[in-house]
């Protein structure tokens, strides 16, 4: 069989992901995380935090919860159903930093955790920093 013919066969017969179910779970879990975020924000504001500080505290709390759930091996069990629902909020980024750190602690603090902690999240940080620098230049001259 030729490559093109086989690739066509493999494509046609591949079982499809349950897109509707995945979208529904992503919507529900992602929505629940954002609702929790909003509730926390209201709580921090009620406790006297300024709007901007309240937002920072919400991020810190969600990151803390994710790190904790990742460490106890629970986060990936939720995420394998939630998909984008846990990936898109700040929870996905926190998990992407902590999980390689846990994995690589067997190689020590420097060669393991230090070297590999950004192996998944590194591109997000790099291109995020570049994009913000470019935007800063635009804002400085034309903002």
């Amino acid at each position, binding site marked *: 069989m030729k490559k093109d013919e*086989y690739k066509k*066969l*493999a494509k046609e017969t591949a079982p499809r992901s349950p897109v509707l179910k995945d979208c529904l779970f992503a919507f529900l879990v992602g929505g629940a995380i954002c609702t929790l975020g909003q509730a926390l924000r209201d709580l921090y504001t009620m406790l006297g935090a300024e709007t901007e500080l309240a937002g920072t505290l919400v991020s810190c709390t969600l990151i803390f919860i994710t790190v904790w759930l*990742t460490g106890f091996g629970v986060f990936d069990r939720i995420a*394998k159903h939630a998909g984008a629902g846990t*990936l898109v909020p700040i929870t996905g980024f926190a998990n992407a930093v902590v999980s390689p750190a846990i*994995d690589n602690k067997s190689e020590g603090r420097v060669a393991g955790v230090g070297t590999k902690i950004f192996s998944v999240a590194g591109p997000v940080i790099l291109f995020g920093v570049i994009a913000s620098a470019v935007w800063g230049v635009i804002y400085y001259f034309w903002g």
Partner: protein
Amino acid sequence: MSVIRLKNSVNIISSASVVGRHEHEGPLGELFDFWDEKDTFGMETWERAEAEMQRLALSFALSKAGISGDSLDAIFAGDLLNQCTSSSYGLLPFNAPFFGLYGACSTVVEGMILASLLIESGHFSRVADVVSSHNCAAERQYRTPIEYGALRAQTSQWTVTGAGAFILTNAGDGAEISELLPGRTIDLGINDPADMGAAMAPAAADTLVRFFRETKTSPDDYDKIITGDLGSRGFELMSELMFREGYDVSRAYTDCGMLIYDRKKSDVHSGGSGCGCSAVVFGSHFLREIEKGELGPVLLIGTGALMSPLTVAQGQNIPAVAHLVKIVKKGASL
């Protein structure tokens, strides 16, 4: 390369399987010799755990055969980790000549073929064939960190935590290897590491078609035709490829990757994979049935996807290989 029919019998006198908790909870769970609740086997790292699994598997196989490690003429062993360290570290205590193999998940059959040829040549009389894979060690090397949360593709497979050991000799009872066919590396353009079943099916079909044509036999001449770890995805494609070549394999064909887990209950998608998959399922299930005489001639086809994380990142295709051995109850092939 043509089918090699062994003139002198090569016997599999004993085998042993060591698995993790997930595999123990599967439908074949009770058949395995040893399992560990935490998958760590008392070790601090996953890599050491996998090496320990190889040590345990070979220890059990040797004690079942009633022989010691230093009476082995050679060990052929392999695993999935870089530089095959689970094998070299795990089998260090046996003090036997060591050959490290890499055939990805086809390694157990690759080892059987090489061991059989060397035993038949008369240079070796006792050889061990040992392989392993560990889900956590493999995931962190090949894919994402263990605790990283993401959806998995429907075509993806679950790396089996398992180690299998076989003792092959020039004399003994039980099952014997009677025919061999080494596989060719095949690339039909699949480059998705989450679709290894599709990458490996053409190699399995290539080997099996060549075997049938050369031996002038058909699927009906065998009680079981067993592939290593194509999973349900590769099983469907393999059946289709064989059908297009004029062979209906539906009666006898099965795949170890589809048997090791309860695929309805456990979230393994297409099924199990890894060196340990075919080794523990064949060693603990099919080999015992052959020894008891419940199963007639069997074709075991080890299937391996030969990519590395680097070739995947570079977008290269995934070549695959499939080695075949025919195994029968001693005396049945005469």
